[in-house]
C-alpha cells in the first residue's frame, strides 16, 4: 500500500494551493490566503454545514466547503459571480427570516451576518420580510437569548458547555420552526467568562451578556473599517 502523500495539491479559481490530507476545503483555502465566507463555522468546533454560505462548486457539484475534505487535484470554484450571488441570497434570506433591526442591536458592528451583508454590499434583501413573532428569553442570571436575531447556526449548541461538559443550549422542533432552547439551570451556572464566551461565539446578537452592551464606540468595532475575511486575505499578502 502506498503511503498517503504528506501534502496534496488543489486549485481555487485556478490558483494553485496545497493542503494537508483530511483538511476541509474551507480550512485549506484559508491556509492559502483565500477567504471563503461562512457563518456557522467556528474554528475548533465540529463543522455543522448549517448555513451553506460557504458553498463552493467542484466538478459542477455544489458542496459546503466547511464539511467537504480537499482531495488531490480538486478544482474548486469559489469567487465566481453566480456562487457569490447565491451566497448573498442566503444572507438576504437570513435577514428577512428573523427581525434584524441593526440600529438597535448590541452586536451591530461586531456581527458576522451584518459584516457579510456589508462585504456583499447588500442594500436590500430581494425577499419579502417575514416579521416573525419571536421573543426575548432570559437565560439564567448572566445572559439573554434574543430569538429575533437567531440564525440557527448551532454554534451555541456545539460549543457552549458548563465546566462539567454539559450542553447549555439545544434545539426544539425542526426545519423553519426550529428554535434554540436554553437550560435555565445550566445557564445560571455559567461563569462571567463563560457567559462572555457564549456571547462571542454567537455570530449575531442573539446571545447577549446582561448589563453590558454598546461598550465599543462606532468606528472602533470589529467590522467598521475592514470587511470580514480581510485577515485571511491579508495573510496571503
Amino acid at each position, binding site marked *: 500500500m502506498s503511503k498517503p502523500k504528506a501534502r496534496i495539491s488543489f486549485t481555487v479559481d485556478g490558483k494553485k494551493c496545497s493542503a494537508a490530507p483530511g483538511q476541509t476545503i474551507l480550512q485549506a483555502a484559508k491556509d492559502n490566503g483565500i477567504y471563503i465566507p461562512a457563518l456557522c463555522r467556528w474554528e475548533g468546533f465540529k463543522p455543522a454545514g448549517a448555513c451553506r454560505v460557504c458553498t463552493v462548486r467542484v466538478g459542477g457539484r455544489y458542496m459546503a466547503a466547511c464539511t467537504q475534505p480537499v482531495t488531490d487535484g480538486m478544482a474548486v470554484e469559489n469567487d465566481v459571480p453566480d456562487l457569490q450571488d447565491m451566497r448573498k441570497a442566503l444572507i438576504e434570506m437570513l435577514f428577512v427570516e428573523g427581525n434584524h433591526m441593526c*440600529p438597535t442591536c448590541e452586536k*451591530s458592528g461586531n456581527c458576522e451576518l451584518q459584516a457579510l451583508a456589508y462585504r456583499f*454590499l447588500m442594500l*436590500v434583501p430581494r425577499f*419579502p420580510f417575514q416579521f*416573525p413573532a419571536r421573543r426575548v428569553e432570559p437565560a439564567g442570571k448572566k445572559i439573554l437569548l434574543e430569538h429575533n436575531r437567531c440564525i440557527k447556526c448551532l454554534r451555541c449548541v456545539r460549543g457552549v458547555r458548563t465546566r462539567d461538559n454539559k450542553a447549555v443550549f439545544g434545539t426544539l422542533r425542526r426545519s423553519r420552526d426550529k428554535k434554540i432552547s436554553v437550560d435555565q439551570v445550566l445557564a445560571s451556572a455559567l461563569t462571567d467568562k463563560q457567559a462572555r464566551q457564549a456571547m462571542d461565539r454567537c455570530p449575531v446578537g442573539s446571545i447577549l451578556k446582561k448589563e453590558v452592551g454598546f461598550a465599543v464606540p462606532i468606528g472602533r468595532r470589529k467590522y467598521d473599517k*475592514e470587511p470580514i475575511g480581510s485577515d485571511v486575505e491579508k495573510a496571503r499578502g
Partner: protein
Amino acid sequence: MSKPVVATASLAGCFGCHMSFLDIDERILTLIDLVEFNKSPIDDIKTFTKPVDIGIIEGGCCNSENVEVLREFRKHCQVLISLGECAIMGGLPAMRNAIPVRECLEEAYFHSPTIDPSEPKIMPGDEDLPIILDKVLPLHEIVKIDAFLPGCPPSADLIWKALTSLLEGKPLDLSYNLVKFD
C-alpha cells in the same frame, strides 16, 4: 435647460435621514445650484407643482396616509429612492409588527405609565385620522423603488454620492465604508 427637480418626504421615520441629508454641510450650496426642490419639508412646499426627477423617501409605511403619500411620490417621480433603514425594512417602528394593532393601541392609550387613572380612557378613532396598518411595511413592498440607501441614518457622504452619481448619469459606485446599517 431647466434644473433636475428633487422632492423628499418623511413617512414613518424620525426625520434623522433628512438631518443626515443636511449634514452634507456646505455642499448644499452646490446642490441648490444643481437642482431645484419641489415638494419637501426642506423648502416646505406641500404639494407637487411639477413632474419630479428624483424622489427621496425616509421612513416606512405605518398608516394609510403614508401609503397615499408614497403612491403620490411614485406617480410624480421618475426615480424613487428608499432612504434609510425604516424605508428599507420598516426599522424601529416595525418592532410592533409581531404585536396585534389593538394591543399596541391599548398599551399606548390605556396601560402606559403616563396615563392619568382619574381620566376616562379614550382611544382616538376619528374617521379623519389615518388608519394604522396591521404591519409597518418597507416602501418597496408597496410601490416600485429604484434605489436603496441604507443606514440609520445613511451617511451624508452616501447621500451626496448617490445624488451626484444620479445627476451625472453615472452608476452608483459603492465602497465598504458607505454601506452601513447603523
